[in-house]
């Protein structure tokens, strides 16, 4: 089990893990509040200023999985993986226009989740439940993928477990994470994010200075990558790969960037980090400063090409970055980089479990099981659910192939974007009918799942993120939209979702109450 262990790197890794464990437990005393109230436990008392929010959201959105997966796509097929950059460019203007309004209305009305707001706005329980369940279901596989990221770096440390020992390190890591999240709530990832983000910046600055120097300059890196992509295409290993996009990749690139940007702030963990801010001003400040992380993400993406140029050969592209780090750096600094990536898994996993727990407590348990809950009782349930969610993610990793978690995450994104009309349009207008939005959501989920279902030729179950604008509809037949490209299924589905919601709202005017007032949306 330990024969191939890199002792120096592992020691550094264990040191940083111990450090953040102490920080995580200590966090319960930071900006002290009554942690037996869900607002304190699950939103940190809404008192995080601009800088704390910057670290928290940065640590929350730019996850370990991102650090592993984005360069893995670049390593595999090149330019296409760079869609993460336009994606993160589109997010922040959108955030500026919407999230201060959501923060203001949630602050004034005491909402904790997106579903709380949707219920208050539309007075429609099914819509509230749809929004809540979408968030919870989409979050679970996302947590599981953080574990995949964690396992990649632990594997790179040289740990080789067999049988039940294979997952021993991540189990220990996750149990400790679960305990301090249980105790400290959102304060724990907020404080740990300081450590994690600083480490990621050090790692990436070192990487983009040292590695191109070792490899003889950027020109050589791109030239080496170009050769490998060309060889892959020539050998028919992939349909398209290169330093630029193929014609067929252009529309998927654009629609993936736009659709992912629309979906991101529908996720409970993104909203939890945002609603915990102390003011709308703190959120606006972050729309101008969070792009620093996007820039770093772009640089991280290029690690995929550096791995090619360094001659890193891996069977799973997700091992490209860990192996590149081992190739480029002395053991102690490799341990430091792996720690940074590992913390990059723990911070989002904690916020995700808190976001899912808040949502479950407020929008599933309270309305359907125990309507007369006090904030203290809410806190008890939320803490328990945060544990259950983490155990669930561990079980997925234990018993399911990684591909299963990846597929679920893909479908989760397609589903998550379907609450966009209810949440985002609801911030500006009450024109839509709650039932119309619910039916739109339903259509969006069905269309998104149907488009994504792409069984392999032998009939094996398979899911794909993009689909051509030509559809074979059951009981209907072949339908050619005339659009000669493929697009991200989440985006296609949300267009149908919006059309259904708008058409029904046009003929069916809502009489349900709206408990919010126009002035609630101004901070």
């Amino acid at each position: 089990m330990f024969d191939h262990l890199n002792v120096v790197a592992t020691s550094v890794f264990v040191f940083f893990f111990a450090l953040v464990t102490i920080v995580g437990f200590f966090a319960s005393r930071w900006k002290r509040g009554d942690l037996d109230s869900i607002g304190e436990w699950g939103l940190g008392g809404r008192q995080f200023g601009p800088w704390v929010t910057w670290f928290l959201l940065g640590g929350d959105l730019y996850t370990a999985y991102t650090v592993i997966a984005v360069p893995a796509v670049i390593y595999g097929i090149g330019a296409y993986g760079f869609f993460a950059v336009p994606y993160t460019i589109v997010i922040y203007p959108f955030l500026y226009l919407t999230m201060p309004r959501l923060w203001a209305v949630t602050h004034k009305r005491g909402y904790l989740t997106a579903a709380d707001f949707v219920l208050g706005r539309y007075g429609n329980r099914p819509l509230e439940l749809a929004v809540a369940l979408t968030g919870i279901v989409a979050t679970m596989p996302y947590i599981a993928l953080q574990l995949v990221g964690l396992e990649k770096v632990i594997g790179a440390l040289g740990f080789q477990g067999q049988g039940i020992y294979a997952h021993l390190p991540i189990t220990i890591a996750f149990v400790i994470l679960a305990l301090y999240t249980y105790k400290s709530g959102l304060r724990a990832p907020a404080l740990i994010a300081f450590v994690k983000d600083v480490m990621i910046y050090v790692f990436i600055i070192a990487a983009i200075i040292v590695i191109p120097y070792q490899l003889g300059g950027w020109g050589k890196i791109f030239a080496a990558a170009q050769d490998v992509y060309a060889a892959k295409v020539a050998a028919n290993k992939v349909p398209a790969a290169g330093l630029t996009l193929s014609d067929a990749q252009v529309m998927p690139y654009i629609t993936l960037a736009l659709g992912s940007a629309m979906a991101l702030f529908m996720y409970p963990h993104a909203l939890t980090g945002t609603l915990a801010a102390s003011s709308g001003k703190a959120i606006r400040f972050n729309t101008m400063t969070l792009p620093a992380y996007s820039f770093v993400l772009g640089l991280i993406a290029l690690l995929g090409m550096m791995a090619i140029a360094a001659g890193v050969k891996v069977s799973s592209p997700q091992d490209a970055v860990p192996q590149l780090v081992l190739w480029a750096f002395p053991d102690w600094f490799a341990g430091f980089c792996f720690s940074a990536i590992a913390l990059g898994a723990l911070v989002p996993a904690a916020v995700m479990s808190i976001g899912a727990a808040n949502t479950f407590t407020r929008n599933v348990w309270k309305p359907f099981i125990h309507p007369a809950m006090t904030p203290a009782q809410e806190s008890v349930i939320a803490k328990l659910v945060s544990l259950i969610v983490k155990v669930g993610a561990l079980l997925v990793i234990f018993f399911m192939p990684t591909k299963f978690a990846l597929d679920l995450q893909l479908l989760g994104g397609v589903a998550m974007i379907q609450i966009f009309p209810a949440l985002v349009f609801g911030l500006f207008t009450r024109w839509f009918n709650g039932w119309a939005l619910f039916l739109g959501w339903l259509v969006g989920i069905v269309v998104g799942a149907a488009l994504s279902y792409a069984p392999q030729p032998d009939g094996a179950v398979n899911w794909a993120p993009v689909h051509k604008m030509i559809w074979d509809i059951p009981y209907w037949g072949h339908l050619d939209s005339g659009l000669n490209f493929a697009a991200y299924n989440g985006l296609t589905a949300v267009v149908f979702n919006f059309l259904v919601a708008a058409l029904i709202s046009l003929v069916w005017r809502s009489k349900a109450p709206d408990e919010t007032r126009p002035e609630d949306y101004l901070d």
Partner: protein
Amino acid sequence: MKYLYLAAPALIALAAPLYNRVDPQVFGVPFFYWFQLVLVPVSALGIYFFDRAGRA
């Protein structure tokens, strides 16, 4: 008009055919990559200018 500060960088980021090329390169980095990287701080500046215009 101030909304252009917000919209322009985002629209350019989504207009992939505009920057889907290798040349001109900078320090050996193809246009596709450095252009999008440069667009990141430009988009942040756009939000900053929009914010200032909004408060005036």
